């Protein structure tokens, strides 16, 4: 087990290193850097001033030197300065993380609470009208772009209350805070719930065909206990894996939903930073997202071993 952990940890470090190289290189082939954008915005270009700006930001140094400076800084907890706001990148990123984390957490809860029970119902009533309805519903959930669902929710909100829901940094009550996060979280989580519903359904169908389910039934266990106690416990295994993978996919939904609802989280910040060619923000944010994904995957692997006694990583 310890050998496995060490191996997994080294692979994680290798993956993160690879991502840092790819992202850093990609951002440097972007046509036009921040100096070009600022010069464009100013309307005229003074070559000497532009060159000075590039020198100040270290953009005139060779790319490997820039890379070494970034990684060295990361190791010391120094993420560099935002080109746009000129504040330390860490101060720009840190306060935005809790906002996105709350949204992501709520979205994940929403998708599990909605997706797993509906998936069980759909499997238990296989080929009934309800099953067909739920299958079409989950497929539509997978087909709808998250940002469009967000816009539709905004529209419904306007129709019902006459105003747009506005994000506020200091909500007056916890009910207000919950509503403020719950509406966009539902828009993000709907897609994941659709996926979890489909997966739970197929996993349940697989398990319900097993011999031990027939044994449970023939010894007189009530249907409810067969479904939720005997079957779901084993059917949940692949679902847990997908919940882990979905946590990574949520990021995509968060990016567009934060944009639609004007929520100042890290996901929307990434898009803004990409538009402004704000390299220190983009590369650190992407590294942060990769770190979260890699850690979640690691946690899911561990959870999987804990849930399924047949899986042991000793070998």
């Amino acid at each position, binding site marked *: 087990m310890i050998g496995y952990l060490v191996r997994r940890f080294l692979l994680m470090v290798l*993956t993160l290193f*690879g991502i840092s190289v790819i992202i850093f290189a990609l951002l440097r082939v972007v046509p036009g850097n921040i100096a070009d954008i600022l010069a464009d915005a100013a309307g005229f270009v003074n070559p000497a001033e532009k060159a000075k700006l590039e020198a100040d930001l270290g953009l005139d140094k060779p790319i490997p030197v820039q890379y070494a400076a970034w990684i060295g800084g990361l190791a010391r907890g120094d993420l560099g300065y935002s080109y746009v706001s000129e504040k330390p990148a860490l101060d720009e990123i840190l306060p935005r993380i809790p906002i996105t984390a709350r949204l992501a957490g709520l979205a994940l809860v929403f998708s599990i609470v909605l997706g797993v029970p509906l998936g069980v119902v759909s499997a238990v009533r296989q080929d009934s009208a309800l099953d067909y309805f739920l299958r079409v519903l989950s497929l539509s959930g*997978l087909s*709808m772009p998250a940002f469009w669902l967000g*816009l539709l929710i905004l529209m419904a909100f306007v129709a019902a209350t006459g105003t747009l829901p506005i994000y506020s940094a200091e909500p007056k009550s916890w009910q207000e805070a919950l509503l403020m996060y719950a509406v966009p979280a539902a828009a993000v989580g709907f897609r994941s719930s659709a996926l979890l519903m489909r997966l739970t359904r197929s996993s349940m169908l697989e398990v319900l065909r097993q011999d031990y389910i027939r044994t449970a039934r023939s010894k007189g266990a009530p249907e409810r206990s067969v479904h939720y106690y005997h079957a779901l416990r084993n059917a949940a295994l692949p679902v847990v894996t997908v919940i882990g993978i979905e946590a990574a*996919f949520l990021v*995509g939904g968060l990016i567009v939903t934060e*944009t639609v609802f004007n929520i100042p989280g890290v996901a929307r910040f990434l898009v803004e930073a990409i538009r402004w060619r704000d390299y220190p923000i983009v590369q650190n944010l992407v590294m942060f997202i990769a770190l979260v994904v890699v850690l979640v995957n690691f946690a899911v692997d561990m959870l999987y071993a804990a849930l399924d006694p047949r899986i042991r990583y000793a070998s």
Partner: protein
Amino acid sequence: MSGAGYEGELARAGANVSGRWGELRFLARRYPLGAVGAVIMAVFVFAALFAGQIAAVSPLATDAAQSLAAPSAAHWMGADNFGRDVYSRIVFGARISLAVGIGSTALGCLFGVALGLLSGYLAGWVDLVVQRLIDILQALPLLVLALVMAAALGPSLQNTVIAIAIPLIPYVARVIRANTLALREQPFVEAARAGGMGEFAIAVRHVLPNTLAPLIVLATAQLGAAILTEAALSFLGLGIPEPHPSWGRMLSESAAEYVRTAPWLVIYPGVAISLVVFGTNLLGDAVRDLLDPRQRA
């Protein structure tokens, strides 16, 4: 030996049909949802191919007098803030959506298959390197990688296709590699080797055709994801540039500010995106059931 045959599945289902039409009718009865998906896709492909004939007005023609006009006989789906006909932009938008979706899926599959085949067949250090590369690419969410790629390459139709194709590569490579690993040990591969066939020829002539079924299943599943990613990129302003009518971009122009004043600008492009992706998903499920019965949901 074809890997994508579904005759066995037909026979098991008790099909007693002759000719293409009989087969199609049987399949439509057996997979009604898949048939609906196929019809939806056919409608969008038709719209994309004959956009000029179906929509009389140019999708780019502006008319200040018609700015934000509500749906009427002249503009079925209303007009946008430049007075451009929404219906015609949606019909022409099918071209962009399908071109980017099919183009990026095909490109992603091409490189994914090559990488997967190489990695699974050669094994050893090649496999090790490819595996790490796949790990790296998969540690970034699809949209994040596509966003950075799109920004790095600059906004254009071709670059959007490439930006979406690259994140698809690891998914394809993984499936093809797993299949190749299993196929390598099959007796028919051994027979080909014993017959003096070169390794490259075996990989291309014997192993590759047998990975076709999972590849088709994967490609139909990825098509929807590719179309959705294009819509999201264009919505964020980093995908298809003006003046191309992209559904995602139509939503970004009209986003929150028109929710109150011109809801048709929000509703129709979203319906178009959802419907085409819904079609690919229905079709994808049916194709999976037909070609890969073991994975059936």
